């Protein structure tokens, strides 16, 4: 408004000034008027200027106030974002996992042997058959009838303890006594012909076992209670004479012949009881499996983290482990607590790992961790599995690959000379025996270990390990195996393990990086006097089926070496070799091998493989990747009992067709496999 007035005035003034002065003649009054107008004009100009300054000032003030307000809002917003971020899932929860499709083509080759299980079935079938001894009074006391014997059984069990007791203390002695009348006359007159005069090593041992466990019951019988026996004795022999007393009348040679004859009638080649299995070639040309894992890591509080790994592992077209387990290796007879999620079973998502870790205890590089442990797939198996190094977790794969429930106390000191060094004490429970009662005296099975890793860097990682298994059980708890439902029944003793190994990565060796490792393991058994009845009186790496052996400590060793070359094209070429000695035993049933855990092999295993990673940008995590893998495993077994601590190893080439064995002895096995794997 004022600006307009000013403009009008100025225009008027200029218009006025433009009128020729001559037209108005010099007039003082007029001049004064002009001067007055000029002064007024100046005043107006000043006023306008003052107003403009005032207006600018006001605008600036307003602007300044606005900026301050924005800054505050931005600050508030930032705080809000920080708070939301602090509590956001990504801040405290990490989700990852893996998927694997795998196809295996499995071929094996066994040697002739005799199935101990089927032979026992034949024997019991004879005892309980129409001409059997069950329900008779041979020997003076009645044995259980067939119905009673069946009633002694337990669901899922091949033979219950009561049934086993009946067999050993009633049926077998009765059957043995019943055979005597047909043998004694020929033995006495020297015309008895043994099936084989030379017993196999196992048969000799079986004879000794029968003398110790069956014969005492026979010797206690009175000859008058054994049909046909009294008539063979010299006239006047009292019917109350025991068989032991009667045997005193025979020469040692005759007694030996009689015992051998009795044993051969039970378990000799022509006894009709032996379930002899000729050599055969088991195979599964296409075994497809699906494996899916979900990893969760939650930062619960400062320094405390929870880890969980949920795993599903199943074969195509199956909801049981029957497609992948059998009667070849102890670690692949069935799925149990330590191998759940590591042997194909069903589509359930099992908890493979769940543990809490407290780090930075007392502001020191000290940690304590407890739960279902990451004690599977340890170094150096990460190379062939194409996993990251296990860090502070895991155990040397040569010694332990078992899903343990346990705890760890670890310390990682800052020693300049020993980068990455740490040490830890680990404890795990392999079996909890439950409430102790008069009927349950079996002890818990525990594992204690100390690991020292003096250096852990890319160029060099060294590990040293000792662990001891206490109160090792005979059979783990499994269902629907070839032995029926099994459970630990006896503690067989302890085992010590020692291991030392190293792995290294050399960068830029030729066009790629070279990884290699070597590992050495030692196992020493400390058997107790206990033996497993369920395993035919075999102990901790001692004895054979029905051929008990005195407890003897056995020392075994193993080596494991491998190399992997990583090319810039993301192609990885690897080769591994491992050898286990006759008495080598490991605790690695969860190893990622289909036939049996290769590091537990008593013999040699060769495994070349190739991995081709896809050159795809990771999205779900920095380390996510997808790859194909093709590999081949060749097992060359030298001794029986790979991955089995029950019973003594036997050289494969020395196995006799009449040798009773719980598991089929395999001399070689092949597995050609391919995978498509995604880690996310």
């Amino acid at each position, binding site marked *: 408004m004022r600006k307009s007035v000013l403009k009008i005035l100025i225009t008027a003034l200029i218009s006025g000034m433009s009128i020729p002065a001559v037209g108005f003649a010099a007039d003082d009054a007029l001049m004064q008027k002009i001067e007055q107008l000029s002064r007024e004009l100046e005043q107006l100009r000043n006023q306008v200027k003052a107003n403009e300054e005032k207006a600018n000032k006001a605008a600036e003030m307003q602007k300044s106030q606005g900026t301050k307000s924005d800054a505050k809002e931005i600050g508030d917003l930032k705080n809000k974002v920080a708070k939301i971020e602090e509590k956001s899932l990504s*801040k405290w929860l990490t989700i990852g996992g893996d998927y694997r499709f795998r196809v295996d083509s499995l071929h094996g080759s066994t040697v002739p042997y005799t199935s101990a299980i089927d032979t026992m079935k034949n024997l019991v079938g004879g005892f309980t058959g129409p001409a059997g001894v069950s329900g008779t009074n041979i020997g003076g006391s009645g044995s259980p009838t067939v119905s009673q014997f069946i009633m002694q059984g337990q669901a899922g069990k091949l033979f219950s303890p009561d049934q086993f007791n009946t067999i050993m203390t009633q049926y077998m002695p009765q059957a043995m006594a019943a055979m005597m009348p047909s043998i004694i006359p020929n033995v006495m007159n020297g015309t008895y012909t043994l099936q084989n005069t030379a017993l196999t090593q196992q048969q000799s041992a079986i004879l000794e076992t029968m003398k110790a466990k069956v014969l005492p019951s026979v010797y206690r019988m009175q000859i008058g209670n054994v049909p046909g026996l009294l008539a063979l004795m010299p006239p006047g022999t009292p019917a109350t004479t025991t068989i032991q007393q009667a045997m005193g009348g025979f020469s040692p040679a005759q007694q030996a012949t009689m015992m051998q004859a009795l044993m051969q009638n039970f378990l000799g080649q022509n006894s009709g009881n032996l379930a002899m299995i000729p050599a055969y070639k088991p195979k599964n040309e296409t075994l497809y499996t699906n494996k899916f894992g979900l990893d969760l890591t939650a930062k619960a509080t*400062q320094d405390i*983290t929870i880890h969980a790994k949920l795993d599903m592992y199943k074969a195509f077209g199956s909801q049981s482990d029957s497609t992948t387990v059998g009667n070849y290796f102890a670690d692949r007879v069935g799925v149990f607590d330590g191998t759940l999620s590591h042997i194909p079973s069903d589509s359930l998502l099992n908890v493979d790992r769940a543990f809490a*870790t*407290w*780090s*930075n*205890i*007392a*502001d*020191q*590089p*000290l*940690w304590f*961790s407890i739960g279902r442990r*990451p004690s599977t797939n340890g170094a150096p198996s990460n190379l062939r599995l194409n996993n*990251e190094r*296990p*860090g*502070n*977790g*895991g155990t040397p794969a040569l010694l332990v690959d078992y899903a343990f429930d346990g705890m*760890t*106390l*670890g*310390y*990682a*000191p*800052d020693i*300049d000379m020993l*980068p*990455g060094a*740490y040490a830890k*004490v680990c*404890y795990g429970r392999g079996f909890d025996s439950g409430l102790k009662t008069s009927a349950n005296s079996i002890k818990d099975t*525990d594992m*204690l270990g*100390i690991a020292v890793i003096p250096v852990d*860097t*890319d*160029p060099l990682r060294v590990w040293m390990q000792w662990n001891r298994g*206490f*109160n090792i059980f005979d059979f783990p708890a499994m269902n629907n195996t070839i032995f029926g439902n099994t459970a630990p029944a006896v503690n067989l003793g302890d085992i010590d393990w020692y291991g030392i190994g190293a792995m290294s990565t050399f*960068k830029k060796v030729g066009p790629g990086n070279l990884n290699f490792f070597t590992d050495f393991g030692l196992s020493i058994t400390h058997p107790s006097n206990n033996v497993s009845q369920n395993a035919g009186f075999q102990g901790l790496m001692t004895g054979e089926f029905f051929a008990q052996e005195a407890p003897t400590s056995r020392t075994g060793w193993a080596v494991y070496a491998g190399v992997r070359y990583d090319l810039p094209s993301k192609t990885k070429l690897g080769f591994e070799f491992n050898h286990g000695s006759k008495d080598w035993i490991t605790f690695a049933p969860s190893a990622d091998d289909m036939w049996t855990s290769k590091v537990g092999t008593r013999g040699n295993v060769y495994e070349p493989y190739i991995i081709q990673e896809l050159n795809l940008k990771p999205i779900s995590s*920095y*380390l996510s990747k997808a790859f194909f893998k093709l590999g081949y495993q060749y097992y060359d077994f030298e001794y029986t009992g790979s991955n089995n601590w029950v019973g003594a190893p036997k050289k494969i080439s020395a196995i006799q067709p009449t040798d009773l064995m719980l598991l089929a002895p395999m001399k070689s096995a092949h597995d050609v496999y391919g995978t498509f794997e995604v880690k996310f």
Partner: protein
Amino acid sequence: MNKIVSVVILVVMMLVSTLASVQTARAEEAKMVGSISKIEMAADGKSATAILKDNKTGESVTIIVSDELTLDKFNDKRIVEGDEIRTKYEKSGDKNISKMFKKTAGC
């Protein structure tokens, strides 16, 4: 067995408590535990700057890392932003030079 476990745990605890009481840090060195908020690789790839948020004080500390093994872990994403780190560094002027830089131990 229980006795052996108890003795072993006791010995380890004693060892740990002894170690915990020893002041190992040298005067010119500092140690801290904190989460990485930022990693920036140098253009030549021969060093990196990592900003860590101290777990204790909440302050951000900038540390220069130049050892090859740690740089490899940055490059391979084996150490990434968000990871908790135990570090030892030397104060040189206004710069903190890493002497040790590793993820906090635990499994």
